């Protein structure tokens, strides 16, 4: 009764409420007047007295109205909550009655959302999380542009001139990465560091946590040796010693004063542990020695575009007097900080996120199909509800509540799954995006997962609910007849969509996977197996066991002789340019008697220093002439070896031995003409992906003083070779860190990025196949269940088992084939997006496409066959008696 009164009031609204209140107060006044009259007062006096005793009626009514208005708001809220709770209760009960749908749905959604959310943690960390630097969106990276449109690091003179463009960049800092050896307080270790100019810290906008940044006096040519170190290094190597500031540590054997400790957030360039003043090092004489990277803050009101236009113009004025060259800037490039750090990864990340959203789409389609099948089965129930006066909205709400319950549970499970997957992706991310330190499951990620869950829940329930509730009552009567025809069409359509999406993903994974195979199969041009490699950075200078360049060369000789004498050693060599290991400097060489020697177009080539046995140790074939010999020393005729790419590109049909080459500006030594004495085969140098470049080789006995690596070819197990090398290195200079590794591991690691990309896409494709297969199985099983009677009858009159099975499989065949066709079209259209990830493979590669179609078709057939086969086991007696 109370509830009805409330509903009545709710339905009839405010006016009634006001008159109710008037009734209530009037009654009181009337009764009071009656009472007073009863006590002997005259009516007029009684009314006056009653009104006095009652108080201001208008004020009281107002007060009560305010109280009731608040009460109504609260009531509406609780009633909404109650209705919601009731919906959830009914949905939960209905799901528990058929746990198959609920479990399957949760699993499907968990897979889809788990994979999507795991990828999103990466996007979140890379694109959305703020940097530790204040106002990071005003930070930009500056580059020089070459005449070929490629970006170059900035030359000494240019960067000092750019620093005066304060109208564009009030703060501009330049830096250059370096490696130093720290041999105090533990094993010797290579540390990453950077030479940074004084405004650098201001550009990042961060201050030291202890001590101070470089002073003006320190940031100049000839300033005292000082360093600031990162919090990480300070804790790791110096036990967070608070008195470290002001003390002297030794870097590369030189004493340097620590002036400040920088907070962990400073961490730039990535993984740098210490910083030294760049001003002490910059030569400031060249506009073509590209030594510096530049970060800056844009002036207020200046956009990156404006800054780029104005800086380009300024740069062209600066280089106006330079001789045109590949290495002279023709403009400047201004890139937002985050874009610079993301680099090419942006595309890869978006592509992977796109792929994984396709997986989620399959999951959503799958759930929709399950819901459709379930809706057909529930037509009786829905019909009864409609007959009892339920509105279409009620039915839709009920379907939505059920599916939301499933997808929200699946979403929560997916979030957990993402947490696990995140751990697996950590090392890959660290490699691709060094600035991303962790992949947090923050509110944004959780919100993403839950938003997907709600989206999938609503999308998967609306169409089935609309369809189910639009039916007439007669459906309940003519059940199993024409009722499912339009639903069946929709089910088939969705099945086709699943198959199409699966084909797209499988072909994408196939393309990337086959690229990886090709990449691993590339002939690098040198032999890797059985080789151990290590850095051999013998130093010159006071306090070093090898104080001069001549003594360094002698030390190399001695070490090589020792290593060659070890049992098992087949060959050993020293080089400045070990493929996939060392830096690979290049520059403008000159060929005597060609325009390149007289200011013509330069002969750009790699610059490599090797020991005489280098080509033999790496099995780089000698094509013509001779290798370096022990007799090629300082004082003997100056010689060079070039590779085939050099001959092809710069010498053509000429006899290479008639030419002499020169590499000016590569080091401080004088640079006489060197006669070409040999031609060797090409090899991949920077990365397996890159084609071999022209290169000039010199012998380390004639060109001294370059940082080097040692490579040993031995018949012994690599581990024992490495152990031996370690003791040998310590014998030469015990302050040098040991970096030895099996070369095959190095080559393997160089493919880590493409490998993980392939693995990720492969996993996504596998999930897609699995989901599609599950969808097909469910649809065929449903079709079989719907036609139990018919199949039973056919079995009863003697239909063979194969015919029954075929019938079931054929049921799936048409939508699957349609899906394959659409999928191939989609793969052709979308494959272009993956173009940059492919190696020697076209996006529309027919073999890959055929393979993807084959795989998907096989999986689809098996998925259809299993439930179809089960149909043959229907007992005709039971089937015919049913209904």
């Amino acid at each position, binding site marked *: 009764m109370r509830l009805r009164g409330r509903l009545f009031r709710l339905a009839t609204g405010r006016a009634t409420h006001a008159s109710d209140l008037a009734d*209530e107060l009037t*009654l*009181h006044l009337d009764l009071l007047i009656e009472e007073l009259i009863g006590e002997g007062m005259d009516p007029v006096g009684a009314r006056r007295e009653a009104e006095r*005793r009652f*108080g201001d009626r208008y004020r009281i009514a107002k007060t009560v109205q305010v*109280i009731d208005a*608040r009460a109504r708001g609260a009531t509406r809220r609780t009633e909404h909550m109650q209705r919601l709770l009731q919906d959830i209760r009914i949905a939960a009960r209905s799901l528990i009655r058929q746990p198959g749908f609920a479990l399957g749905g949760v699993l499907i959604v968990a897979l889809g959302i788990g994979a999507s959310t795991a990828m999103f943690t990466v996007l979140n960390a890379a694109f959305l999380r703020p940097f530790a630097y204040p106002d990071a969106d005003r930070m930009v990276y500056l580059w020089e542009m070459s005449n070929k449109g490629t970006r170059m690091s900035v030359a000494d003179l240019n960067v000092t001139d750019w620093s005066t463009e304060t109208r564009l960049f009030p703060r501009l800092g330049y830096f250059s990465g370096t490696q130093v050896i720290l041999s105090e307080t533990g094993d010797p270790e290579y540390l990453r560091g950077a030479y940074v100019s004084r405004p650098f810290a201001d550009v990042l906008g961060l201050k030291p946590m202890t001590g101070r940044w470089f002073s003006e006096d320190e940031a100049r040519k000839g300033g005292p040796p000082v360093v600031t170190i990162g919090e990480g290094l300070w804790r790791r190597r110096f036990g967070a010693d608070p008195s470290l500031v002001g003390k002297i540590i030794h870097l590369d054997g030189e004493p340097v004063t620590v002036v400040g400790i920088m907070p962990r957030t400073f961490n730039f360039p990535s993984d740098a542990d210490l910083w030294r003043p760049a001003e002490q090092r910059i030569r400031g004489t060249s506009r073509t020695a590209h030594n510096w990277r530049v970060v800056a803050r844009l002036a207020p009101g200046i956009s990156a575009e404006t800054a780029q236009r104005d800086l380009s113009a300024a740069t062209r004025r600066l280089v106006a007097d330079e001789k045109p060259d590949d290495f002279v800037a023709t403009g400047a490039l201004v890139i937002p900080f985050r874009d610079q750090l993301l680099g090419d990864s942006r595309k890869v990340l978006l592509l992977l996120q796109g792929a994984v959203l396709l997986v989620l789409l399959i999951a959503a389609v799958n759930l929709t199909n399950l819901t459709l099948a379930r809706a057909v089965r529930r037509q009786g129930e829905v019909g009864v509800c409609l007959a009892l006066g339920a509105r279409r909205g009620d039915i839709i709400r009920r379907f939505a509540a059920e599916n939301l319950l499933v997808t929200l549970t699946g979403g929560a499970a997916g979030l957990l799954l993402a947490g696990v997957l995140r751990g697996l992706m950590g090392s890959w991310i660290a490699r691709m995006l060094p600035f991303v330190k962790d992949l947090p499951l923050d509110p944004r990620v959780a919100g993403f997962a839950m938003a997907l869950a709600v989206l999938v829940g609503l999308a998967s329930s609306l169409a089935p609910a609309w369809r189910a509730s639009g039916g007439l009552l007669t459906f309940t009567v003519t059940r199993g007849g024409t009722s499912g025809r339009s639903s069946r069409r929709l089910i088939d359509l969705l099945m086709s969509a699943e198959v199409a999406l699966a084909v797209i993903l499988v072909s994408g994974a196939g393309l990337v996977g086959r690229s990886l195979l090709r990449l691993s199969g590339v002939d690098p041009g040198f032999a890797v197996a059985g080789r151990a490699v290590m850095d051999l950075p013998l130093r010159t200078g006071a306090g070093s066991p090898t104080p001069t360049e001549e003594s360094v060369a002698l030390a190399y000789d001695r070490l090589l002789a020792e290593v060659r004498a070890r049992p098992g050693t087949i060959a050993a060599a020293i080089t400045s340019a070990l493929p996939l290991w060392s830096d690979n400097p290049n520059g403008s060489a000159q060929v005597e008697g060609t325009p390149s020697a007289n200011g013509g177009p330069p002969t750009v080539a790699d610059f490599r220093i090797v020991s005489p046995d280098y080509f033999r140790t790496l099995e780089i074939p000698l094509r013509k002439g001779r290798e370096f010999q022990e007799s090629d020393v300082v004082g003997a005729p100056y010689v060079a070896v070039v590779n085939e790419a050099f001959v092809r590109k710069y010498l053509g049909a000429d006899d290479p031995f008639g030419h002499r080459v020169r590499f000016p500006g590569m080091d401080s030594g004088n640079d006489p003409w060197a006669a070409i004495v040999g031609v060797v085969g090409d090899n991949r140098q920077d990365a397996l992906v890159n084609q071999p470049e022209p290169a000039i080789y010199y012998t380390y006995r004639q060109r001294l003083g370059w940082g080097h690596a040692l490579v040993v070819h031995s018949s012994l197990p690599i581990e024992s070779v490495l152990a031996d090398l370690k003791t040998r290195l310590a014998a030469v200079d015990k302050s040098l860190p040991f970096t030895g590794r099996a070369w095959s591991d190095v080559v393997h690691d160089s493919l880590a990025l493409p490998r993980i990309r392939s693995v990720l896409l492969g996993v996504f494709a596998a999930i897609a196949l699995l989901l599609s297969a599950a969808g097909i199985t469910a649809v065929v099983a449903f079709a079989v269940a719907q036609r139990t009677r018919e199949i039973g009858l056919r079995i009863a009159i003697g239909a063979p088992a194969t015919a029954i099975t075929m019938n079931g499989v054929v049921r799936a065949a048409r939508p699957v084939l349609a899906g394959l066709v659409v999928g191939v079209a989609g793969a052709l259209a979308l494959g272009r997006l993956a173009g940059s990830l492919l190696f020697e493979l076209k996006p529309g590669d027919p073999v890959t496409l055929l393979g993807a179609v084959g795989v998907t078709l096989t999986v689809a057939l098996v998925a259809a066959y299993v439930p179809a086969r089960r149909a043959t086991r229907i007992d005709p007696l039971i089937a015919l008696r049913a209904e």
Partner: protein
Amino acid sequence: MPPQPVDLLQGTLEFLVLKTLSWGAMHGFAIARWIRKATDNALEIEEGALYPALHRMERKGWIESDWGVTENNRRAKYYQISRLGKEQLRREESSWTRYVSAVSKIMVAARGQT
């Protein structure tokens, strides 16, 4: 329940209404009469002030209301105490007793010292 000085009067009125309704459902006028009779006219209040209190208490869920008719066939809103209201009444009764006994102790002590 700690006493709230500002709401003392309002709290007292609510207490009285709950106590009154514990005898059975009544409309507003009857409640006012009952309070007046029970207190021997000692608490003279504006009778209209009863209604904000009644509606506020209804919102708190202490009392419930329903429309019915009086003996003279007039439409009237009847209030009755709810389960929540009974609990509230019990709480207030005990705190009221404590309050009264504390105050009377002070009075007795004061008299003893003069």
